[in-house]
């Protein structure tokens, strides 16, 4: 920790009923995803970094320069910050062509008109839209508009690139292509990149590191592998598709509720999480015999399609989601309210410490 990261921010924003408090450091060339449910404060954080909303406390320091630091009365307005923003619905200026949209930034930074347009043309070429320079935004498809917005943000060589749900406005198919494309451009971007999203797939594909934000606070931070393997909140567990419980571990058992414990293959003591995949949950009409170490009776509360399988929500001593094949479903009467037996093998569970 000798040199501070390119972006070093402690964002504190207070509203009447909401407080956002998070620390973000992003290195040169690093892509960080800020992931969280709606209302977690993701967009507020992005707006604070962009200077579209002042901090209540804390600081935003980019490349060693304070952009916003209320306690020292330092404030740099948005237009003087070395940033680029890709907005959720792109906000391409409707009265300007794609080329002029991209040239807008360089022009405002004092580049001569001719030079700015040349630079814009190069950027449009880079995002594969060399033939669309004279199109107005309303004549561009969603994917094309997204790429113009990216080119527009990158054309000012920002030290910090901010992306607000960059793929949310696209349909599933375009999304796949655009995501791959975006990944390439973000990898080439020499500055820091912060990506705000509620889509875990975007975050996992595009980012080097994930920050999970809930209720204005960081609940988990790390690389994709760590977070998917060891979620620390219900939200993260749902994101990565795991059943997650917190309890007190004592050897191979984790007591998650009074009178209810899960047996695990891992062995540990103290405050712990237990996680298992919905596909590891087996349902039986009668109490099963044999190897599964965790068996309890539960009631079906909901049934949804989930890919090729069915996802069954169950209530009981603990709430649990189970993924079962249609073949397995045929053996059970799947109606909400139906009692069933739930079985989870100890070897299918994962236990890890909740502290530290």
């Amino acid at each position, binding site marked *: 920790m000798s040199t501070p990261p390119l972006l070093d921010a402690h964002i504190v924003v207070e509203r009447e009923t909401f407080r956002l408090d998070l620390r973000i450091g992003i290195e040169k060339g690093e892509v960080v995803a800020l992931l969280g449910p709606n209302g977690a404060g993701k967009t507020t954080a992005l707006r604070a970094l962009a200077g*579209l909303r002042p901090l209540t406390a804390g600081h935003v320091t980019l490349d060693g320069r304070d952009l916003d630091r209320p306690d020292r009365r330092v404030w740099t307005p948005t*237009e003087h910050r070395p940033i680029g923003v890709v907005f959720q619905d792109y906000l391409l200026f409707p009265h300007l062509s794609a080329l002029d949209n991209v040239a*807008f930034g360089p022009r405002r930074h004092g580049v001569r008109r001719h030079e700015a347009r040349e630079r814009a043309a190069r950027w449009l070429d880079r995002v594969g839209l060399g033939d669309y320079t004279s199109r107005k935004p309303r004549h561009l498809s969603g994917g094309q508009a997204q790429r113009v917005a990216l080119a527009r943000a990158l054309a000012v060589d920002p030290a910090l690139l901010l992306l607000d749900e960059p793929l949310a406005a696209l349909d599933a198919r375009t999304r796949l292509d655009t995501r791959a494309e975006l990944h390439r451009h973000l990898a080439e971007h020499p500055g820091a990149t912060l990506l705000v999203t509620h889509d875990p797939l975007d975050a996992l594909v595009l980012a080097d590191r994930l920050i999970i934000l809930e209720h204005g606070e960081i609940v988990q931070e790390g690389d994709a592998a760590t977070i998917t393997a060891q979620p620390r909140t219900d939200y993260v567990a749902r994101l990565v598709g795991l059943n997650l419980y917190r309890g007190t571990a004592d050897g191979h058992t984790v007591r998650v509720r009074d009178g209810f414990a899960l047996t695990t293959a891992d062995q540990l003591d103290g405050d712990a999480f237990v996680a298992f995949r919905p596909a590891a949950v087996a349902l039986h009409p009668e109490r099963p015999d044999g190897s599964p170490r965790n068996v309890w009776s539960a009631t079906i509360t909901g049934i949804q399609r989930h890919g090729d399988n069915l996802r069954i929500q169950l209530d009981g001593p603990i709430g649990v989601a189970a993924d079962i094949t249609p073949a397995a479903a045929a053996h059970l009467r799947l109606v909400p309210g139906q009692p069933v037996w739930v079985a989870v093998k100890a070897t299918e569970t994962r236990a890890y410490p909740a502290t530290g």
Partner: protein
Amino acid sequence: MTVATPRRVRGRIPLPLIVPAGLSLLFLVLPLAGLLIRAPWTTLPQRLTEPGVLTALRLSLQTATLATLLCVVLGVPLAWLLARIEFPGRRVVRALVTVPLVLPPVVGGVALLLVFGRRGILGSWLDSTFGITLPFTTTGVVLAEAFVAMPFLVIAVEGALRGADTRYEEAAATLGAGRWTTFTHVTLPLVAPGVAAGAVLCWARALGEFGATITFAGNFPGRTQTMPLAVYLALETDLQAAIVLSLILLAVSVTILASLRDKWIASP
């Protein structure tokens, strides 16, 4: 098999609504029809080319256009201020802007005289310092028209600004545009239809201005006698001439309305 006639699902239109509706339509259209019916169509070409008519028409078009320009130059910034900046007393300012809308134009004329008149608060200073006299001049006509027409522009543009997505302005700021550049390069182009609609309404109001003009600028042919004033004057001596002048104003108004219709009124 017979084809079923579409069934009436909502019942008849109630008489207490349809009768007054029809009457009001008649009331609005009949006077205009009267103007067309009584027009001296045979002598129309000669009358249109009479020097007095052309002079008044030219003066009207010139002053209305100048007044509109004045309103745009001063009114658009005011509208921007009202729409974008939170300042104490904003509601009061907005109310004040609309006063000329409901104020009898004659009162406006009197008020203008008290301020810009030769012995008015500002007028006497303008007169003694710069030798500028405003009342009873063509400039006075422009001033009177602008006073009455300005609210139309401000209200239309403020509405357009409020309807415009301010996030485009934020996007401009992230690209390095300051407030003024954002205004000229992003905000104005976005609300251009609103400004145009406001300007046209403003121009039409200025063209028809009578009360404030005659009070503040008087009624001198060639200098301050605009079309509405000429109509009023002609009415006392030559009814036919008054009809012809009115027809011209009607034609201009209808043209404006037609040009406004789908373009701006429907989607400001």
